[in-house]
């Protein structure tokens, strides 16, 4: 069949194009502009080519921040995904307690990021914080402001507290969509609890689990507010993750060129890793179907 050529349809997406141009493309281009230019102030720019990129790729500071970032994302994924699944499996399926648990689980997700940081900042202080003071009273040497390990533990516990419910809620939705007949069939087949999980629940949850892992990875890889409020990247540089480092560089030191190159690479890394995640998981899925 011959299709009618009518390019007027392009006008329909024009508003979106304009909106996206203003909200994303043009700001991004400013960053690109800074990343390939150098300046001595008073808006005099001169061409620097890929100089900033080369400097940043070779910089130990960025390597260290990237290393900490990968470690952090790895740890919280390794904790939150299994824990979220475990919580979802043990939540009541219906009735009052189901709604109660849902509300309870949703609460941490509703708290603004900087408030979460503040809550934990106070909660863990050894002089007035409930947790910090109790630990100190028990004789445990805990101080997140001057011990790197304590700072890491505190940030990870905070992130687990804040975000595990997202994984749990997504998994719970996946579990709720499994028809009762599957469980009945499993009973008849004398399947063990582990088999039910492995062959019924996990396959049915795989779709939402993929989304949960992706979301948690992207969010944790971009984490800024909570550790900034809690530790400010310290003690020393021990909790300085990529975005904290980026802000220090751009706003603190006003090194706009390196910071711009840094942020473009940061963006590309996130894009790349997310794409790899998605492709790997969907191809695995497609292979299973065959």
């Amino acid at each position: 069949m011959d299709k009618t050529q009518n390019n007027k349809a392009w006008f329909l997406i024009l508003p979106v194009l304009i909106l996206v141009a203003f909200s994303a493309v043009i700001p991004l281009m400013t960053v690109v502009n800074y990343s390939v230019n150098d300046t001595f102030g008073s808006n005099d720019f001169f061409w620097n080519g890929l100089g900033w990129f080369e400097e940043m790729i070779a910089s130990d500071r960025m390597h260290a921040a990237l290393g900490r970032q990968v470690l952090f994302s790895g740890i919280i994924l390794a904790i939150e995904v299994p824990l979220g699944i475990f919580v979802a499996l043990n939540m009541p399926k219906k009735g009052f307690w189901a709604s109660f648990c849902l509300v309870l689980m949703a609460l941490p997700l509703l708290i603004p990021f900087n408030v979460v940081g503040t809550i934990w900042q106070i909660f863990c202080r050894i002089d007035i914080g409930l947790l910090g003071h109790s630990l100190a009273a028990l004789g445990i040497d805990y101080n997140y402001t001057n011990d790197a390990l304590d700072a890491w533990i505190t940030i990870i516990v905070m992130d687990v507290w804040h975000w595990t419910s997202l994984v749990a809620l997504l998994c719970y939705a996946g579990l709720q969509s499994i028809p009762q007949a599957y469980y009945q069939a499993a009973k008849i087949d004398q399947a063990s609890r582990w088999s039910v999980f492995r062959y019924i629940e996990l396959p049915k949850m795989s779709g939402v689990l993929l989304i949960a892992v992706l979301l948690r990875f992207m969010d944790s890889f971009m984490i800024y507010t909570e550790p900034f409020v809690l530790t400010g990247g310290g003690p020393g540089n021990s909790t300085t993750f990529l975005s904290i480092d980026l802000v220090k560089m751009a706003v603190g030191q006003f090194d706009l060129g390196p910071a711009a190159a840094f942020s473009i690479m940061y963006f590309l890394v996130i894009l790349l890793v997310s794409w790899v995640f998605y492709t790997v998981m969907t191809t695995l899925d497609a292979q299973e179907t065959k």
Partner: protein
Amino acid sequence: MAQITLKNLAHSYSATPTSDADFALKQMDHVWQDGGAYALLGSSGCGKTTLLNIISGLLRPSQGRVLFGDRDVTDAATAERNIAQVFQFPVVYDTMTVRENLAFPLRNRGMDPAYIKARVQAIAQTIGMEATLDRKARGLTADAKQKISLGRGMVREDVNAILFDEPLTVIDPHMKWELRTQLKQLHRDFGHTMIYVTHDQTEALTFADKVVVMYDGRVVQMGTPEELFEAPAHTFVGYFIGSPGMNLLDASVTGNVAQVLGAEVPLGAAYAPIKGRTQIGIRPEYCELSATEGLPITVRRIEDVGRHRIIRGEVGGQAFNVIAPEGSPIAADQTRVRFEPNRINVYADDWRVQGGAV
């Protein structure tokens, strides 16, 4: 395999049932023969799935006992009962291959791998799925999945009964016939006790040796397809079985004569005086239009379905159907309908009354 006995069985979904209406299943006593093919037939909400779940152990009855052979299994868990069930929507383990699916119940019971292998092969042959044994179950069609879930049930040699909960609902019409015929064949070859829940009379009548018709939480009749057709024990059976169902007319009966709409209708048997609402029931197949004899009928329309014609009309203001053979003349002056006396059933308060010799 075992005979299934239901003793004083009743079930209510409410914790404190007060009236009869609270019971999804009214009290019943039945014995289901070992190796029989039974169909549980009834409209939605009549309690047939409840009954099936009680037999499979997914539900515990509020009262009464369930016996498999001599063993009381009322409190036994599903897994202990050794039954198999095929559900309305195909239940297969998506991530496993067909082979792993079939082996799953045996592996969970810790059987010897060599035995499992041989057994899976044999079952795959029975259900005609040898060629697809190593495919993932996920991509298969609905009828293939249903065959797998049937195979998962049959793979255990000691299975007590195979239960089917409307298994053909999601199957394409042309595959329904094939699967039904296969089921019948499997039943003949292996002699499992099979219980088949459906609301489709064709499925029930072609599959089962004995059809159990349920209505409002009660088993209203248990009989062969022929018995259900010739002597429906309850007006619901008359209405539900047959296409169209049985015609019912209010009547008063004395001896072997029924008074209907002021006219006398001869009956094939003699009846003692009847209490309650009395009706006579006659299947459309046993009615005939006539110019001279019988009750006056107003013909509304005639449907030609190919092998016969269905005459839709009214007798005494009530819908009334007559089936006329293809090719027989229907004339404008045939304003009366005549019945075969031997085929008339008499009902008191919806239940069939047994007549005596004339």
